């Protein structure tokens, strides 16, 4: 394992493709945190745990398709993104829809801080949340139209916006301390 730590991702993938479990373990240690953080920025922590598992299982099952002459990270990122897309398209999302209080979504962005604060908080959001909030509050689109644009369901678009606003609030509160 010690020797493996000095190897590049691509070399580890080649070993892993050849059936070396320790090489996979090394890749997992190296990148699982990054993937988890990325997923946590897009979905709830609980869903991110499931998606992390899904991502690494997908990597395992499609490892023979990876070509070591290409860098590993974009491939890993693409697999993580695909897991995320599958998650948003999945009918299981209904489970998550329960408990979303759509009435709690404000009609406009909260006036907690100055325009500068808001813009800074907005830029601190993951891309998907930022885009959804912009479409909702700047373009004044309906949830249905946003859902259509983002290839997801209206309930999901509400959820994405709801999470984005919560995150903005915490960013603004954090910024004021």
């Amino acid at each position: 394992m010690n020797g493996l730590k000095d190897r590049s991702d691509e070399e580890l993938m080649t070993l892993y493709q050849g059936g070396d479990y320790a090489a996979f373990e090394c890749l997992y240690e190296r990148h699982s945190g990054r993937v988890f953080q990325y997923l946590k920025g897009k979905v709830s922590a609980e869903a991110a745990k499931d998606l992390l598992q899904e991502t690494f299982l997908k990597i395992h099952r499609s490892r023979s398709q990876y070509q070591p002459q290409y860098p590993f990270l974009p491939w890993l990122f693409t697999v993580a993104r695909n897991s995320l897309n599958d998650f948003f398209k999945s009918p299981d999302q209904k489970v998550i829809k329960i408990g979303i209080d759509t009435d709690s979504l404000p009609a406009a962005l909260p006036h907690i801080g100055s325009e500068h604060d808001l813009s800074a908080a907005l830029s601190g959001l993951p891309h998907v949340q930022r885009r959804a909030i912009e479409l909702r509050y700047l373009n004044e689109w309906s949830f249905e139209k946003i859902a259509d644009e983002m290839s997801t369901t209206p309930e999901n678009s509400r959820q994405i916006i709801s999470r984005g606003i919560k995150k903005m609030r915490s960013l603004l509160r954090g910024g004021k301390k």
Partner: protein
Amino acid sequence: MKITEKEWLEDFKDFVSSEGAAVPQDVSRKILRRIHAEMNPSPWMVFFKLFGVHLVVGTLSLAICNQFGLNPFHTGFSLSEYFMKFGHSACMFLCGVLFIGLTISLCQIFLNRDEFRILARNVFLQVFGLAVFSLVAFIGFGAEIVLSIGLLWLMGAMIGGVVTTKAFISRPSFS
């Protein structure tokens, strides 16, 4: 979610530059345990899968090459007639090669790479088990097998199984 190339790049930059969040230990344990289990299937499980494939493929192969005179399909054609041109011993040897080699060849469809790797790791034992089971089944169905002829068939079966497995696993596409 449909995104443009620019958005993908932005997202990817965020992904690469992130320091990473601590993954809960129970989640990591679960993932690593699962991958470990998938990469190391039980040799017994592999053998039972192999046996299942052999039961079907082996039986069907009797239609094109009868073994010790057994052909439940009563087809008029048998490769053993061609093999007999090289002598009785060669015929027995080649029949063994074909009988097990065909199963291993078709196993590539039914076993995944990890299972095939386990098969390759224990190839002598796995193929020997398969060949002995086959011989016992032939005797059970009424074949009269002389020891020397049976041993020649067994040798052919072993070589057919081992060579087919090694040939498959050493292909560059198998990695």
